[in-house]
């Protein structure tokens, strides 16, 4: 018998602090597998956000920086400009990327920075305990939209993949999910493609991953996975929104 599933080398063996069933763990593994398979671990520099994945620097087995909330793209920009052959990956939540970090992510894309952004869209603020995110769905109850999100009070959920696909500097923009085995596979394909395009210098690449926050959604992990399919995907359609042709 041969081993078909085990811990990738690009992860340390520290235990994840995430809540039971939190999909941050799945996405961490996917990233690590991509770097392993592309043999990029020693070239990789990861920028961790402020969010539940703030401690990712303990889990990623390559150089990492912990960024100020929302600024990962600016940090990645500077490093990539100074070390153009390295592989820059930012890992950001929806508060980090779509709220406080909106300016940085859009400008990194306009500047066509050769970096790869992993955008974890779990429709809520996890780390701080369940406040509304820019991606929180209409009607969704959070601690800062206690009566459910409404257009009048809170406006519309941000569709970041669609928005960033508008940017001429974006080489690859894709939205995936990790709510089914098939989607996990697709997510890995997309991320691998993004990283490869970064290393070819084609420009800004981002994969938005629809994820879960069972704890703050107040659901079991399995229910949360179903909620992604039933409520998130209908509003946040999956697929590739921008694929830049080479040359």
């Amino acid at each position, binding site marked *: 018998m041969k081993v078909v599933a085990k811990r990738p080398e690009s992860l340390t063996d520290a235990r994840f602090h995430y809540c039971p069933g939190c999909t941050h763990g799945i996405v961490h593994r996917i990233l690590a597998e991509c770097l392993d398979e592309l043999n990029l671990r020693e070239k990789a520099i990861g920028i961790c956000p402020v969010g*539940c994945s703030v401690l990712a620097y303990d889990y990623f087995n390559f150089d990492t920086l912990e960024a100020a909330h929302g600024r990962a793209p600016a940090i990645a920009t500077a490093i990539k400009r100074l070390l153009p052959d390295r592989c820059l990956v930012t890992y950001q939540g929806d508060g980090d990327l779509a709220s406080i970090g909106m300016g940085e992510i859009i400008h990194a894309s306009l500047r066509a920075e050769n970096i790869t952004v992993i955008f974890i869209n779990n429709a809520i603020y996890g*780390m701080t*305990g369940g406040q509304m995110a820019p991606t929180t769905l209409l009607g969704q109850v959070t601690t800062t939209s206690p009566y459910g999100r409404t257009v009048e009070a809170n406006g519309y959920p941000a569709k970041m993949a669609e928005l960033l696909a508008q940017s001429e500097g974006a080489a690859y923009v894709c939205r995936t999910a990790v709510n089914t085995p098939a989607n996990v596979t697709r997510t890995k394909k997309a991320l691998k493609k993004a990283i490869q395009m970064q290393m070819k210098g084609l420009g800004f690449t981002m994969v938005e991953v629809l994820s879960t926050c069972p704890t703050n959604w107040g659901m079991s992990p399995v229910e949360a996975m179903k909620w992604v399919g039933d409520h998130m995907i209908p509003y946040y359609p999956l697929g590739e929104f921008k694929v830049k042709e080479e040359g």
Partner: protein
Amino acid sequence: MEKQVLFAGFGGQGVLAMGLFLSHAAMSSGKNVSWVPSYGAEMRGGTANCLVTIAEEEISSPLTENPLMAIIMNRPSLDKFEKRVKPNGLVMINSSMVDRTPDRTDLEVLAVPVNELAEEMGNPRGANMIMLGAYLEKTSVVQVEEALEYFPVIFKGKSERLIEANRKAFMAGVEYARTRM
């Protein structure tokens, strides 16, 4: 004199709620009180604890290194806090979850198997109220009768069923303390 009691256990054990109940009861019976939760990281899980200070006069310090009493709901909490309880202080232990007794000999130790008792009475989530009943019966930090009076106040807004279940659990703890300790 200020009485300070520490409640400590796992996240889900209703430890903060115990402290809150006691605080409400103490306040309702005209005492001064402060409730300070342990200040967990921005992440979930781990151990939880809170410190309740009760006094007739104004409360000077709501914090202390050495509480007079400690309600210990799980093993790690005992390991962590045993040495910090005041000399000759009181330690109440949830014996269903703690497999050892304190090493210190100066402490008064009372063990209550609250999880078993809760399971028995078919209300697993009532374990913390059982412990509280036993605690008040033993210490009269607040009189049991007073505490019972204030149930409606304290659980204002909660369903009758739940209040009733809690009262039952609380009384079970009082009962246990009266008869079996």
